[in-house]
């Protein structure tokens, strides 16, 4: 059994080294045989499942190699697959509703009283990250990395850099980071025109394709994201460490969700039309983040708080906490449990509205995406980890996540009073991790 594990690690070491070029492969073969700790691997499988909505599976493999002089190479592969149904933005109605799929090929019906969900959601994503970290002077560490992520309809390329300076016996660290992403979105069915009416009817009719094309602007669009991160870490005493961050993020380009629509309702709340959403083409968000870890006699408490605000009136509060409790060696193995609690609350974007009133003029920007509406969410979870052979760690994590969208004070005309405009979303998260 031990031999098999060592072989897996050796094989992965060679495979990882192969990505770096031929010379390193030869080197890796010899070091892998001699030195078992040349690479460290972290792997995880996660399953995420919402009740009646999206489910996702995600696999991560992270390989880390430490060289002499504390240079560190980190390579990460992430693969995920998404399937299921997602809210399309329209409101529930007392009658059956028919919607056209984002591709324009075919339609789907939603039963009376149900929140309209588009069940054609599916995607597979492959992501690669590489990061190099090294000391550049006494007490000065630099790091640089690249990122590539590809989905069926999405491509993201990114670079990042970070510099950190230690002082006061390495008790204090100041860091400055920068990252830039260039994303291209090629959604199925193309980019819809803002506020164009969703074409509904016989999609096999000879005129359908031409009519559908009239609701489109083009086949793709892009956006850039630039982040700056200023950090300060301070060791308080033997048991306590704190971190403070300030981040500034600019996103420019296509920020609209091409799959989301809004319902135009009359004064009785009855749907008259469905139109594609439209969001501003830039967003600036900022946040401050504080984290503290405290080591009790044996347990460790990790608490963080983030306050985020953007230029579209979204503000949010996030509290995240983990408590690590080592267990006695009842199975003559080191193990721990870690309860987790997270609370999140956000206010709505200024262009969020759950529907559009036909009697009022069309807004400049509007989205009914509940993810930018007023919302409260919490996560409660438990992780169990144990050390197995050779100090490898195996862990299991199970969490429950609940989002509760709330009414930010919109009047609900007529029949909209009888339907649920802000349905909750429940999700289960299950994860197995193995580090070797």
């Amino acid at each position: 059994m031990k031999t098999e594990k060592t072989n897996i690690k050796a094989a992965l070491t060679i495979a990882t080294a192969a990505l770096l070029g031929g010379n390193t492969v030869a080197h890796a073969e010899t070091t892998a045989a001699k030195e078992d700790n040349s690479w460290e691997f972290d792997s995880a499988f996660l399953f995420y499942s919402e009740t009646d909505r999206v489910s996702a599976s995600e696999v991560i493999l992270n390989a880390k190699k430490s060289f002499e002089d504390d240079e560190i190479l980190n390579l990460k592969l992430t693969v995920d697959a998404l399937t299921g149904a997602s809210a399309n933005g329209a409101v529930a109605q007392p009658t059956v509703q028919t919607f056209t799929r984002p591709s324009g090929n075919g339609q789907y019906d939603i039963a009376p009283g149900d929140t309209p969900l588009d069940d054609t959601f599916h995607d597979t994503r492959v992501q690669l990250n590489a990061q190099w970290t090294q000391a550049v002077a006494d007490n000065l560490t630099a790091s640089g990395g690249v990122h590539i992520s590809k989905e069926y309809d999405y491509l993201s390329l990114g670079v990042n850099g970070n510099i950190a300076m230690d002082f006061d016996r390495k008790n204090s660290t100041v860091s400055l980071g920068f990252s830039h992403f260039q994303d291209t979105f090629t959604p199925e069915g193309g980019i819809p025109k803002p506020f164009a009416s969703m074409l509904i009817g016989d999609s096999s009719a000879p005129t359908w394709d031409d009519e559908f094309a009239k609701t489109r602007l083009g086949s793709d669009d892009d956006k850039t994201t630039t982040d700056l991160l200023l950090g300060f870490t301070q060791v308080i005493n033997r048991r306590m460490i704190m971190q403070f961050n300030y981040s500034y993020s600019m996103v420019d380009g296509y920020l609209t969700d091409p799959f989301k629509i809004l319902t135009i309702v009359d004064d009785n709340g009855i749907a008259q039309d469905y139109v594609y959403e439209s969001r501003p083409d830039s967003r600036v968000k900022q946040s401050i983040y504080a984290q503290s870890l405290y080591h009790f006699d044996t347990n460790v408490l990790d608490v963080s708080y983030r306050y985020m605000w953007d230029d579209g009136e979204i503000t949010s509060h996030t509290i995240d906490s983990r408590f690590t409790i080592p267990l006695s060696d009842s199975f003559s193995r080191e193990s721990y449990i870690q309860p987790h609690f997270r609370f999140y609350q956000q206010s709505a974007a200024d262009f969020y509205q759950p529907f559009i009133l036909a009697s009022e003029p069309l807004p400049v920007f509007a989205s009914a995406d509940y993810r930018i509406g007023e919302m409260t969410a919490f996560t409660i979870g438990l992780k169990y980890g144990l050390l197995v052979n050779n100090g490898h760690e195996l862990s299991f994590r199970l969490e429950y996540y609940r989002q509760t969208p709330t009414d930010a004070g919109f009047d609900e005309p007529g029949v909209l009073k009888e339907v649920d405009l802000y349905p909750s979303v429940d999700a289960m998260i299950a994860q197995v991790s193995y580090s070797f």
Partner: protein
Amino acid sequence: MNTGHKIKLALIVPLIATASGCTSLGVEPWERDLLAKDAMSLTSSPIDSALDDHIYFSKEASSGGKGFGGGGCGCN
């Protein structure tokens, strides 16, 4: 001054106080036994963090803060 600004101030004041060099803070190199434990690192499980970031980036209007909150997927 809204709540947000008060919270910012509440966080920035101790930051400045800390940075201005209270000499009682910090430890000597030989006092790092507890701080050296995995559970005491600021990101005790990078894998869990990466997975969580992806979930919450896809489902909420906020991202980043602890690290970069950038793009990277078409999930939001």
